[in-house]
């Protein structure tokens, strides 16, 4: 067990995106196998993420769920008119989670959750044809949240708690489409900020009108990560007073929103079957523009309009208790992209996607279960462009055809005492 957590901490340093925007939906293998639906499912400590109000309904005194998902995402780009093509380096991202709840009394449970709901890792070939927009990005946000879950009546509970976020971002792009140093190496800027912290909260409720039916609602607040005094490093800039900037590191300020999310859903239990449905509304509208304010006044701010829109995700899952020790799961979700046409930046090249999920839990002992899940995420081929890059005061479009997919094998463990 100790070894596993060590491995997970190790892997934590590479998160990857695969959901709309830079949201990551891998917050529990049991839910993930059911299309990542779980706001109304009482099953394990995964409730700490999906609906803390449900924690109080868990039968055991102590519940722990932990897991890690391997995210293998690929994006290909091509421009038929130019004959240009590129694909991202398919590195392995490993978002993780750790949830625990402890039942204080029949009416009160406390919990703790550590999870990574936002993150992104995209690496294009350096100096590719969209390098003035991005070479690579690595964005991580780790949420740490103490929880309380309280049963108001036998069929109604509430829960929630404050969220502490620590995040980091590393982003590299070329300064423009053509500038090089004396040797022809493209001039670029890398911004780096880590240990960026912020706070938020989440609150939820769960209601069972009849025994077999549960209804859940969960709201997680918006959290703006404000990077102050990060490092912006300019490299390969030609050494000249006529160059737009000089080589070296300057400070920068920037902010990146982790948007609020509202989830409502229901689950219905019938014999050995459990059906679940979740609806997520992610309030991406807050992500209007990525503005990087470089400390020296002579370096112009980098204004990158994003103009995201609020988006919805529809999640469906089913569980079948095949054996006493074995639960099988299947799911599907439809994930609407928050990216609007003309704002398709290759840093988050995401159009609408469909997730096909499956998995199982196997009880090794009455106390320990292994949870496995697998997701195949399918994106339609899309012709899109980012039309808001500025050159000489003129908007220059960068576009082409994008095609993405992602595979997410995940493994977790559930422990109850």
């Amino acid at each position, binding site marked *: 067990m100790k070894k596993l957590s060590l491995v997970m901490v190790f892997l934590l340093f590479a998160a990857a995106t695969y959901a709309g925007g830079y949201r990551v939906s891998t917050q529990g293998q049991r839910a993930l196998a059911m299309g990542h639906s779980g706001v109304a499912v009482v099953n394990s400590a995964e409730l700490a993420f999906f609906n803390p109000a449900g924690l109080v309904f868990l039968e055991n005194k102590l519940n722990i769920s932990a897991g890690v998902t391997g995210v*293998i995402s690929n994006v290909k780009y*091509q421009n038929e008119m130019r004959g240009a093509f590129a694909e991202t380096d398919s590195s392995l991202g490993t978002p993780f989670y750790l949830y625990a709840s402890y039942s204080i009394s029949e009416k009160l449970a406390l919990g703790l959750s550590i999870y990574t709901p936002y993150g992104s890792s995209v690496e294009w070939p350096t100096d590719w044809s969209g390098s003035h927009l991005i070479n690579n990005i690595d964005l991580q946000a780790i949420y740490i949240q103490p929880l309380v879950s309280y049963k108001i009546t036998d069929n109604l509970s509430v829960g929630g708690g404050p969220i502490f976020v620590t995040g980091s971002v590393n982003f590299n792009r070329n300064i423009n489409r053509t500038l090089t140093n004396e040797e022809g190496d493209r001039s670029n800027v890398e911004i780096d900020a880590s240990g960026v912290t912020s706070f938020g909260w989440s609150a939820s409720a769960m209601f069972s009108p009849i025994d077999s039916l549960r209804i859940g609602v969960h709201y997680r607040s918006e959290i703006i990560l404000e990077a102050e005094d990060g490092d912006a490093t300019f490299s390969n800039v*030609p*050494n*000249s007073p*006529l160059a737009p900037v000089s080589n070296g590191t300057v400070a920068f300020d920037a902010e990146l929103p982790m948007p609020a999310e509202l989830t409502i859903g229901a689950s219905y239990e019938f014999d050995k079957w459990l059906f679940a449905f979740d609806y997520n509304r992610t309030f991406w509208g807050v992500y209007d523009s990525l503005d990087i304010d470089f400390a020296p006044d002579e370096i112009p701010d980098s204004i990158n309009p994003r103009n995201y829109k609020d988006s919805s995700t529809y999640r469906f899952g089913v569980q079948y208790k095949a054996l006493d020790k074995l639960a099988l799961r299947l799911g599907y979700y439809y994930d609407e992209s928050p990216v609007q046409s003309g704002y398709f930046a290759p840093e988050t090249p995401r159009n609408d996607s469909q997730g096909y999920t499956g998995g199982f839990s196997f009880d090794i002992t009455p106390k320990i279960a292994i949870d496995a899940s697998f997701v195949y995420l399918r994106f339609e081929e899309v012709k899109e462009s980012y039309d808001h890059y500025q050159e000489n005061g003129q908007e*220059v479009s960068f576009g082409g055809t994008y095609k993405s997919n992602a*595979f997410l094998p995940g493994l977790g463990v559930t422990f109850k005492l």
Partner: protein
Amino acid sequence: MMKNYIKYMAVLALGLVACEPEFDNSVEDNEGFYDNGEADFGNYVALGNSLTAGYADGALFIQGQENSYPNILAQQFSHVGGGDFRQPLMNDNLGGFLVNGTQQASTRLILEVGSSGSPAPTPIPGTPTTEIGNTLSGSFNNMGVPGAKSFHLGFQGYGNIAGLQNGAANPYFVRFRSSEQASVIGDAVAQNPTFFSLWIGNNDVLSYAVSGGTGVNQTGNPNPLTYGSNDITDPQVFAQTYSTMVQALTSEGANGVLINIPSVTSTPYFNTVPNNALELDASQAANLTAYFGAVSQVLTGVLISQGVPQQQAAALASQYAITFNEGTNRFIIDVPVTETNPLGFRQMTENELIQLQIDQSALLNGYGSVVITPEVEQVLATLMQGGTPTPEEVGILFSAVSGLDDVDVLDNTEISEIETATTAFNTTIQNVAEANGLAMVDANAILNQVANGGISYDGGVITAEFATGGAFSLDGIHLTPRGNAVIANEIIKQLNETYNATIPVVNIGDYNGSPSIGSGSAQ
């Protein structure tokens, strides 16, 4: 147990990395996008001069070569069966070269803020590391040789280092010729090209133009061995050389594209310093007008004293009574002394051109008008008081005129010689293209459009403005990467038309059109 699961997961993950998304029709695998049509781009050889070599900013260097239009073309040809494209890359990004360890050509130009505070082209600091004598091995697809004229391509021994001294050889060809006796065309044909491009003939007029027309117009002289380096090639020689070369290149059935000669007078080299850059305030203008009035008046007297009838003398001298106005005025140029122009100078006329490299500081000190010394002022004062100047004083007065030298100027006659030759060359090129069923690119029309109104692209407009226009590099003649991309796209367009091919064009905005900067000097 847990360990095994993790191992299993890692193996699974690695397996999935291979499951890449697939486009319905992939550009990378050319699934139905591009077609070579009737041409075979398998082995492309580019022939030409500096423009083909990728020469820019007054030098040949690696970055310029990588942005040469043949190299841009070759990258696009890779979608239609094109093979490797080898270029005889220089040794560095400084440009310039050494012959036996001695520097013989200057490094490339960068825009540098000098002591004056305003940006000016300056050679990038550093010593070239390209030794001409280190001949590269193997054959090269880009056979552009900076400085080559049409007839040079057929010269045997054009790459023999021993011929450098007397100008029978070219240092750039020394670097990559197959043998000492090789000719450019011979080395090209030996590669059995399936496709070629030929852009030659520019230097057959350009060297004359850059010399300010100090060379000889050799029209009518059929023997190029007797030509000086700054001469205009006889159009007959050009026609014969050109068709012989194309014959050699097409003898095995190769397809190709011929590119014609742009008008050298539409380059920034001849259009950056205007002929009316003589800026005067009211009193300066009045003084100059008075000076030339005095010259005219004194000359009238001198002519009369030599027995010329008064009316005739006044008429002849009146050409020197040049009026200057507050604001911009045309410069004075030196011309040969003739009976009709006994003092040998005149004011420039509307279409005459000044070279980019004229000494700008000299212009500020009277070069192109008059250098008024105290002695001259004294003569003028004498005249004002109605005195008669001595012959010595007349000499002082007349010699104060500092007309622009022939080398700095293209006058009307020279311009018309250049135009006539260019037109003749371009007629030949078009005829040869038609006779051989080859594609032809009207670079003359394209660069005229650049110079007159410009060509728009996704980030603005490309013009012929010096340094900032985007088309021409800091030497004012050779193209920037962006200018090369414009040419490459036009070639692709013509190839698609001539050979029913569908070769993708490049995005011009991805190629640099800004002036080269960055010297490594302290900021």
